[in-house]
């Protein structure tokens, strides 16, 4: 078996198509492990992994922690709010101090774009990016693509719509990079304020009409409105009211029924129920949301296993 072409997972750009394929095939075997009576394998038992979370998270953090524990790694958790970071310690100092305690791998989430790449260039350890600001969230994109592969078999030619706050979404960027790399067609849809101008350079279509997008796509990935990132420096809001946003860009049963073909619904979580997704659609038969969460553990196990699995790392 080939090894991954990168020692780290900073962004989707680190991965080749065959790397992705390797991750997916390994994740399938880990998914099988997760359905056994004993869901644990001893592969990483001599490794210590630190989860460095400088930003709040439920799903990603639990998912990484479970993946690490199911691989028998020792896990230490770190959250910025309860640490010396609040006393003014720098990122590199914090990480070097943790590494001095013989930690083998760092899983990091940080509110600033590029934090993972910055750390990688200054610290001698393996780094897995669990989301850096509005830049990338590679494991989320991998688990989304893995869920689609499980459902549709093949990603080539699949029509995927990414709807909502593209500007602030690391999930959107990682998904666009990965899906186009794997041959899927991608359309982004949202209010003009949420669609960055440069997004067409990534090879995606742009739409501002959700109904037209739904008529085109096989899959709709509904992003969360990031209420904590509405940070325009001039104080101008990106959209007028949540109610108006929900009417124009929210997915509800009535809108879904108007579309002739079935559409698979994805959401990276956490859902603002009644804004981007109505409860009926989120819990409906076409929703892949809980499968995404289930596959997240398998994908993260595969990434950690493959990164840790070669001599010298």
């Amino acid at each position: 078996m080939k090894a991954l072409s990168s020692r780290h997972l900073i962004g989707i750009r680190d991965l080749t198509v065959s790397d992705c394929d390797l991750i997916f095939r390994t994740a399938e075997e880990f998914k099988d492990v997760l359905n056994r009576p004993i869901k644990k394998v001893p592969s990483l038992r001599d490794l210590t992994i630190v989860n460095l979370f400088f930003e709040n998270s439920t799903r990603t953090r639990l998912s990484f922690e479970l993946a690490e524990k199911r691989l028998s790694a020792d896990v230490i958790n770190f959250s910025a709010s309860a640490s010396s970071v609040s006393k003014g310690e720098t990122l590199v100092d914090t990480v070097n101090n943790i590494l001095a305690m013989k930690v083998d791998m760092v899983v990091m989430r940080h509110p600033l774009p590029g934090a993972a790449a910055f750390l990688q260039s200054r610290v001698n350890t393996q780094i897995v990016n669990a989301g850096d600001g509005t830049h990338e969230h590679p494991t989320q994109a991998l688990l989304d693509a893995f869920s689609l592969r499980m459902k549709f078999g093949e990603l080539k030619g699949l029509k995927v719509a990414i709807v909502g706050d593209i500007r602030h979404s690391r999930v959107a960027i990682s998904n666009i990079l990965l899906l186009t790399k794997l041959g899927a067609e991608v359309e982004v849809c949202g209010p003009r304020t949420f669609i960055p101008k440069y997004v067409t350079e990534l090879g995606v279509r742009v739409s501002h009409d959700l109904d037209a997008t739904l008529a085109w796509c096989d899959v709709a990935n509904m992003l969360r409105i990031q209420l904590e990132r509405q940070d325009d420096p001039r104080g101008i809001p990106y959209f007028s009211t949540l109610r108006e946003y929900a009417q124009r860009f929210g997915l509800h049963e009535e809108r879904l029924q108007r579309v002739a073909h079935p559409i698979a619904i994805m959401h990276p979580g956490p859902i603002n129920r009644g804004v981007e997704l109505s409860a009926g659609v989120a819990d409906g038969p076409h929703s892949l949301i809980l499968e995404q969460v289930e596959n997240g553990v398998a994908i993260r196990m595969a990434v950690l296993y493959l990164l840790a699995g070669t001599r010298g790392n």
Partner: protein
Amino acid sequence: MALQKMKKGRRVSPFFVPYLRTMDRHVLIAPPLFVRIIDRLAHQLLEDPDFDRLALVGIQPRGGLLAQRIAARLNRLHPDYPVPCGALDVTFHRDDFRRKDHPLAPSENDMPFLVEDRRVILVDDVLYTGRTVRAAMEALLSFGRPASVQLLVLIDRRFHRELPIEPQFVGLTVDSIDAQFVRVHWSADGSADEVELLHAKPL
């Protein structure tokens, strides 16, 4: 136990066959003998008084094929009880993780039955250091608690065992040196399976 004192098959020792040293490869089991060995192993399993609790579990990637060959033979000999036959991947339980240049590649698991309270026969093509079998025992236990576990191998390379593991059922015992390599060729329909001894490890 009578079953465990079963005759361990023919022995082949390359040390006493001078011409072997000059040849690149030597066929240990030709296709007709292969079929007879599968027959004998199937009959040995049939002698188990608890035959109707047996289950075959092949160690992936190649033990799965051997388990299927034996299960097919058993089902012809004794159609009343179709022996359940699974394939077990042991990659995640191996002890050489992080000791190779590439990550270890997992194979598919296929365990279509519960191992709970069954008399499991672990099946592999070649037994050498015993490390794969150790990993297999650990992997098997994560599927439940079998009543017992026994080991069946086609080729037992007696020397260079690194763990205290001995097979109960053996196709052929081979005295080989470390530099040599035993390779099993599997044919699609089972009519041309054979085993050969190579005098150097293939690249």
